[in-house]
């Protein structure tokens, strides 16, 4: 694997995470339980899509064949995506959506904090911009997880069920492979495995405050960030997200 091939994979992983989660969260637009939450979810999705434009724009530059961020988002198929499985999981109920958001935000904030000192200034400046937005996302998703879990019997049970369902997808964010080794060697990005302790401390604190119980097992589903095997949910998501370009190739306004 050449340096540029590894850099491209790394950028796709960052940009596909924010693209797929941004699309998932946007599915709530017009359907959230109250207007304020609807607006909050839409704004979170907007931040993530904005970050996607930066990451996939840079990925397209590195690929160097004249493609754009839009091409990367709309003209690739499921097997080309490099997002972790966690972000493609269905929204479920409002609690499951916020639990997924919290589990991702916690990783995202730690990762972006490291990337601010990346040896590649193009990566560092995107991380600097995104980390401010993500700090805000984390504050909100963490507060909401606590509010719902330490709420009524019903909301507590739903949040515990959401944590039990999603936790087996957390481990994939901390797996390392040859791409990561190349990024570490070049000083561009940290080894994902090295972020786990900080993540566990952060998530553990919120889970305790929320009166939830972290599942014991460390088994993890994987296959998203290396594109080996996505869940069946990604293809269904893409049929919605990419519908316009598939029905009317090249359409623009």
């Amino acid at each position, binding site marked *: 694997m050449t340096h540029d091939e590894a850099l491209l994979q790394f950028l796709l992983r960052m940009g596909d995470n924010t693209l797929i989660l941004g699309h998932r969260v946007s599915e709530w637009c017009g359907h959230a339980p109250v207007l*304020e*939450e609807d*607006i*909050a979810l*839409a*704004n*979170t999705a*907007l*931040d*993530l*899509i*904005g*970050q996607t*434009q*930066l990451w996939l724009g840079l990925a397209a530059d590195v690929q160097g064949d004249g493609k754009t961020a839009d091409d990367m988002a709309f003209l690739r198929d499921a097997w080309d995506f490099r997002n972790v499985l966690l972000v493609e999981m269905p929204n479920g109920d409002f609690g499951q959506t916020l639990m997924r958001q919290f589990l991702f935000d916690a990783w995202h904030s730690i990762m972006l904090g490291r990337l601010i000192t990346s040896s590649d*200034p193009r990566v*560092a*400046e*995107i991380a*600097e*911009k*995104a980390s*401010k*937005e993500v700090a*805000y996302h984390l*504050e*909100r998703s963490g507060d909401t997880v606590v509010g719902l879990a330490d709420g009524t019997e019903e909301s507590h049970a739903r949040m515990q069920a959401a944590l039990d369902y999603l936790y087996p997808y957390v481990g994939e964010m901390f797996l390392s492979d040859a791409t990561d080794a190349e990024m570490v060697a070049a000083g561009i990005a940290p080894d994902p495995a090295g972020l786990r302790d900080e993540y566990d401390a952060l998530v553990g604190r919120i889970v305790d405050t929320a009166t939830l119980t972290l599942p014991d097992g460390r088994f993890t589903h994987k296959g998203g960030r290396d594109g080996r095997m996505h869940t069946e949910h990604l293809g269904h998501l893409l049929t919605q997200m990419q519908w316009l370009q598939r029905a009317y190739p090249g359409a623009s306004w």
Partner: protein
Amino acid sequence: MAQVSTEQVWDWLDDVPDPEIPVISLVDLGIIRDVRWEEDTLVVSVTPTYSGCPATSVINLDIETALRGHGIDKLELRRQLSPAWTTDWLSQKGRKKLEDYGIAPPQPAGGPAKCPNCGSKNLQKVSQFGSTPCKAHWRCQDCLEPFDYFKCI
């Protein structure tokens, strides 16, 4: 035409309103980071408030329209990401105009200092997000008016 001074260009840009909050200018908002001549081309560096803010493309169009209207032919807009935009860059004039308009200006403490309508400090946060990416939604417990608060980042 002869090259106008960059000070003149800054003055022109201070007349271009923010498309979402038209009481303040793009210069008040702190998103114009640099104005310079590179040979015969005027280069304006603009930083986004939030990376996904839909106003960004409108802002670029408004800058271009305004400067072309002032006779600038060769113009280049550059996106500058770093240093990342912060509400510290809002001008004092801009903060005052926001408050007069009914939007509480950002505070380092993380919440509005007082109700922009009645001045009460008895306030409640309704949602961390509001009508645009840069605002949160608050309510005054005394006059009962809801209002926007410009998020501090």
